[in-house]
């Protein structure tokens, strides 16, 4: 957990901090706590283990000397994660300024390991959704005779699914072993399910895109034969891709929710909705960018539907989860999600109002695509922030425990676990 570096680097920083703060507060590691802490927990039962235990004297002869720091605070340390934490993956940029909630932790260290997924997984959330939305757009264009939508959708889908594969493999700790994903098929592992969804979707999307080359092939000879065979193959492949696209767009919600990351897990009802909406909106964005206004009607309606799902879902996760909504409102994730919301609204408005203008349509499409990127990154980093701060792990679990205890009519004595 300690990054390789000069010996005693942290200790040096600790000493500097000690000197800077100039008080005993910094002498014990957990003391980014405030003296206000602890009141909530100072029940008599816990304190029963009074300091008059002689083992203070016998086994740890020195300890007694330190006990006196109690003098300035009640019995229990309470970490108020006042921003800086000693997260092992420190940095990250989440500066959380939140109302003070009192809880206890081990020197303010995170309980959970923050996801080791880097930005490329957030990028994959976007490209996977973009591929799915584009394939749906292409299938619609294919079935309703809108070649501009079909062509743009198919080509974008192939590009996006290829980028997805690159992001996913690149993020592995051992990229050369990516094919180990194909050893098993496990419904309990959304990542395994996603692997198989991608395995079905990717080739279909690829074939559909390649079939678009039929238009530029010569009429005669072997290539001419290919030119006649490709469109029906592309037709079938496009339908297969569109059939698996909704699964591709929504399984990622389960992928994030099926973790111990508090703000992802508790958002499990909304994440697939947000991602479905975001995928639709980004697919619609492709349609608005590529198609002339005469063919872009379905893309506009897809944009409205996608934006509605995305905005509804994002609003729910930002408000429904209590403390666990906080990471989605604060810091960088909050800024990303707010910007995403503005761009979504702007993109939809532009698509609806500027329906005769190619330029406005293209701008709207770009706004929708950018909004999708921002939303995905916001959701991703919101979860990461919730795993880095022990508050989001401890406080909801403690509340759950207390609620269960009170429903079982047990005394608030914490000496006994509630489920015994």
């Amino acid at each position: 957990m300690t990054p390789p570096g000069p010996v005693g680097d942290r200790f040096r920083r600790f000493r500097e901090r000690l000197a800077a703060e100039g008080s005993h507060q910094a002498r014990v590691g957990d003391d980014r706590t405030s003296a206000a802490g602890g009141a909530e927990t100072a029940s008599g039962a816990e304190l029963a283990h009074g300091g008059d235990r002689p083992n203070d004297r016998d086994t740890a002869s020195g300890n007694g000397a330190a006990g006196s720091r109690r003098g300035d605070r009640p019995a229990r340390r309470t970490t108020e994660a006042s921003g800086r934490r000693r997260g092992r993956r420190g940095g990250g940029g989440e500066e959380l300024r939140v109302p003070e909630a009192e809880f206890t932790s081990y020197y303010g260290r995170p309980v959970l390991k923050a996801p080791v997924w880097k930005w490329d997984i957030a990028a994959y959330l976007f490209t996977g959704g973009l591929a799915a939305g584009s394939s749906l757009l292409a299938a619609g264009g294919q079935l309703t005779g809108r070649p501009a939508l079909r062509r743009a959708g198919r080509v974008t889908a192939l590009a996006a699914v290829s980028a997805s594969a690159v992001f996913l493999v690149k993020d592995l700790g051992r990229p050369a072993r990516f094919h180990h994903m194909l050893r098993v098929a496990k419904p309990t592992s959304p990542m395994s399910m996603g692997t198989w969804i991608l395995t079905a979707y990717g080739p279909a999307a690829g074939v559909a895109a390649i079939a678009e080359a039929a238009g530029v092939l010569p009429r005669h000879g072997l290539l001419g034969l290919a030119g006649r065979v490709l469109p029906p193959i592309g037709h079938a492949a496009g339908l297969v891709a569109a059939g698996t696209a909704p699964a591709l767009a929504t399984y990622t919600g389960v992928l994030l929710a099926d973790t111990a990351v508090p703000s992802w897990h508790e958002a499990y009802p909304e994440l697939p909705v947000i991602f479905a909406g975001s995928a639709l909106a980004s697919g619609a964005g492709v349609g608005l960018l590529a198609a002339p206004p005469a063919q872009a009607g379905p893309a506009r309606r897809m944009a409205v539907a996608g934006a509605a799902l995305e905005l509804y879902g994002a609003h729910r996760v930002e408000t429904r989860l209590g403390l666990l909504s906080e990471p989605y409102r604060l810091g960088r994730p909050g800024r990303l999600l707010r910007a995403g919301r503005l761009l979504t609204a702007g993109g939809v408005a532009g698509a609806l109002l500027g329906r005769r203008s190619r330029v406005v349509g293209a701008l709207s499409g770009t706004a929708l695509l950018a909004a999708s990127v921002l939303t995905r990154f916001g959701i991703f980093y919101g979860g990461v922030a919730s795993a880095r701060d022990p508050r989001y792990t401890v406080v909801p679990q403690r509340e759950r425990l207390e609620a269960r205890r009170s429903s079982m009519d047990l005394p608030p004595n914490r000496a006994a676990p509630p489920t015994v």
Partner: protein
Amino acid sequence: MLPDPNSLYGPLDPAPEAGYENAPPRMGFFTDTSVCIGCKACEVACKEWNGVPESGLDLLGMSYDNTGALTANSWRHVAFIEQPRPAGHRASPADVLGAPVDVGPDRPVDAGPQFLGMPGAQPPGRGSGAEGRTDFRWLMMSDVCKHCTHAACLDVCPTGSLFRTEFGTVVVQEDICNGCGYCISACPYGVIDQRKDDGRAWKCTLCYDRLGAGMMPACAQACPTESIQYGPLDELRERAAARVGTLHDRGVPEARLYGHDPNDGVGGDGAFFLLLDEPEVYGLPPDPVVTTRDLPKMWKRAGLAALAMAAATVAAFVGGSS
């Protein structure tokens, strides 16, 4: 064979559930923190036996714990918690072992702030004499992978690298793991971790190789106070309940078990603990729940969202005139 209705949540015997026939009894750890002396022999023995690389040499500047947390390179972690405890809350004082003791004349409670001290020439407080000492307790706990009944890491692993052994423990196969990192986000205890220079996920194996040879895991073997006890889980649970009873009788009411209950959020831990304070004080989650408990509901929501998506696309193309 039909999957057990409790295969995602609830009490379960994991080895038969994983398909083992005539599995040996489930083995585990009972870590009794009331007798831990913080010697870190378990950390060292684990590294020695399992060939775990060094964790990097540094002082964290927070306590005598410079390991910090369970990581890919620390499969045992001894936590040190320094706690002030006001005097006068006990009618009959007892030491951590639960033996009643004689208490001398009242010692001052508020002697003003004092530096606990980093390791020095002599133990902190020795120079001040017995009168100058104040009330303070030091909790130590050797933390380890919990080898959950419902192990989220195992359930979400997309390669089958993590598997359930015949002893009911959870082990990573390093030749399979491709470092996807899913297990790391899934673990409700923050145990399993990625080794930076290696990319794969690593954690305690409960010394699977030693178990197979009928030996005790290295950490339990090395523990000088039997704070780490290894054995069949049923036996350990009985022993732990008796120990808690003893401590309660002797006036340590805050002693409680953690992770022993098959009805808890993870179906009970294969490695459970006797704690002397709330779990979060030790850096443990107070009420962990395996994330896969909600997985059926998650898939259902995803299915609904997928249907909504398909329906929206159909509506977008058939509705309207342009």
